[in-house]
């Protein structure tokens, strides 16, 4: 235990949590609009490959992240059009989107396996980065870490404080009532779905451009499903979402650090379970909230 540097560990937690946090905050908005998109994994991996391709071609990781967001959003529009305009089943379509995204990304990434992408520099924050303890933990990360937190804050303000956010929630709670009030249910939902796709794409690109950083098939390895679970356990609230993502990231980083430190007496199987158990436990104890009323239901103006 004494071999673990708590500062390095806390700093690692924030990094590990970022891709999940990004994907989860996007899905949170989608679900608050009453749409259940199970295609997060597919959108993430598509974002990962799109981001990597754009970054390698242009040499700019920032364009890469933009490409990833665009790629994720475009893919989500397939889901959006199928479920919102053609009223296909959301669960089945979302699962299909994951399958499609995994296949598509493998195809797109054919020529990029083993290629090295451009590196993403850490943001240089003078003064702040030199604060003892807090500096290395909070202020020596790349910009996407801060962007992710800014998005979460933005979503919270949007949902709780803005008129548009209330409309979105109304659409998610009761689409018939929202429609009767004159709100464009389908348009709101399509925008939410595109936002969710863009965020998932960013999360995927964070893996392929920062954390790993390279492209390999299937590299998201289930992160999208964890993001989906965290949305539910966070009771569809942005604040708890951050908590959930950090808990998961924390337990993941801690179990690796414990193993690397050597001489741990806890059986490794328990350490392996810890991220999932800790996240579920804490969020369940916080009392699960109620799902948006129209979650997963198809809407048509005629019904």
């Amino acid at each position, binding site marked *: 235990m004494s071999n673990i540097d708590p500062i390095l560990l806390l700093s690692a937690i924030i990094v590990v949590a970022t891709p999940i946090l990004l994907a989860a905050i996007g899905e949170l908005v989608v679900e608050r609009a009453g749409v259940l998109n199970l295609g997060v994994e597919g959108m993430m991996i598509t974002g990962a490959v799109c981001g990597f391709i754009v970054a390698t071609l242009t040499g700019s990781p920032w364009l890469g992240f933009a490409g990833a967001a665009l790629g994720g959003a475009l893919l989500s529009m397939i889901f959006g059009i199928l479920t919102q305009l053609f009223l296909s089943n959301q669960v089945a379509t979302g699962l299909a989107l994951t399958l499609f995204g995994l296949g598509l990304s493998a195809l797109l990434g054919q020529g990029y396996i083993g290629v090295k992408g451009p590196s993403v520099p850490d943001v240089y924050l003078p003064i702040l980065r030199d604060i003892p303890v807090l500096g290395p933990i909070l202020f020596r990360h790349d910009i996407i870490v801060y962007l992710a937190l800014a998005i979460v804050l933005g979503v919270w303000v949007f949902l709780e404080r803005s008129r548009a956010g209330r409309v979105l929630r109304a659409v998610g709670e009761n689409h018939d009532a929202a429609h009767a009030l004159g709100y464009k249910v389908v348009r709101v939902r399509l925008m939410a779905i595109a936002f969710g796709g863009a965020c998932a794409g960013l999360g995927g690109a964070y893996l392929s451009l920062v954390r790993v*950083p*390279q492209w390999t098939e299937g590299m998201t390895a289930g992160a999208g499903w964890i993001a989906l679970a965290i949305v539910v356990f966070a009771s569809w609230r942005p604040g708890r979402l951050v908590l959930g993502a950090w808990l998961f990231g924390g337990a993941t980083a801690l179990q690796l650090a414990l193993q690397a430190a*050597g001489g741990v007496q806890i059986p490794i199987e328990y350490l392996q379970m810890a991220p999932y158990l800790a996240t579920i436990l804490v969020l369940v104890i916080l009392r699960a909230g109620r799902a948006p009323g129209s979650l997963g239901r198809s809407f048509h103006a005629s019904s």
Partner: protein
Amino acid sequence: MTFKTVLLGATAAAAFATGAMAQDDKTKVGFIYVGPVGDLGWSYQHDQGRQAIEAEYGDQVETVFVESVPEGPDAERVLTQMALQGAELIFATSFGFMESVMNTAQKFPEVKFEHATGYQRADNVSTYSARFYEGRAVQGLIAGEMTESNVIGYIGSYPIPEVIRGINAAYIQAKKVNPEVEFRVVWAYTWFDPAKEAEAAKALIDAGADVILQHTDSTAPQAAAQEAGDVITFGQASDMLDYAPKPRVSSIIDNWNQYYVDRVGAVIDGSWQSEDTWDGIDSGMVEIGEITDAVPEDVKQAALELKDKISAGEVHPFTGPINKQDGSAWLAEGETADDGTLLGMNFYVEGIKGDIPQ
């Protein structure tokens, strides 16, 4: 992962369906891989073997493969599907496919199976593996010489004999050239998960390791080491030459090509029998990738000498005196380990800290 497999399974089924309409006199050979062929590691090398079969026999054979098959019930489904679609020989290329192979083999006595790194056989199930530990010994020597911090990180996949053998073989050589050396093992519980492997590598580097050995299949630990700077790594299963000359200073390459070509040839001429093959550096199944200039010349020569001696049979990586972790005697002075013990190895040798997860 599961869903990707469903998709791949479906594509594979479609491929079989169209394949079934093709000529029937071709020998159909199936492969299931635990990771994607694009992993540039373990599964990639097996796929190289598959391509070698096609190059060798051309129109006489037809090969099919399904990648990213999870170890578990899914594997049995994929194997059954392959057998039903007329595959005559199926290579299952991961340890965890063992039960699935045994079950499927029982249902299809006419189909021949080849299971990599397993230990259960039947009349229609052969096992084959490579003596990776011979390569690990060479890596251990380089690692022990190169480390400055005397902390060597090891990313293990699953605590199975093959992986434990590699850890022990590397440790014994590293300790021989550097008595101060210490091994830190992280069990990733995955063969292929780039994010997790990168995280494991970073955790080890944070804990002071300046040499990383990996027994997982992606190049992510190489990338993590490169980013960290003064850390060296070794290619696993495949050459991983993209990361040379540093961090990747050498590698173990699994070369299945000749074995696969031979076994398919045996099926074609009817001489196939259930066998157990375990070849090492001498047969070419285990290759040591080029040692780069990042390694000092004298260390490089010592490593090559060890490799040659292992190949010639003059040196066995497990030669006594060696004690087990708990201090009890295992091998006496000059005694070498027998294959049975090596195949079932479930203990660390003396000096390695930590417990093997049971």
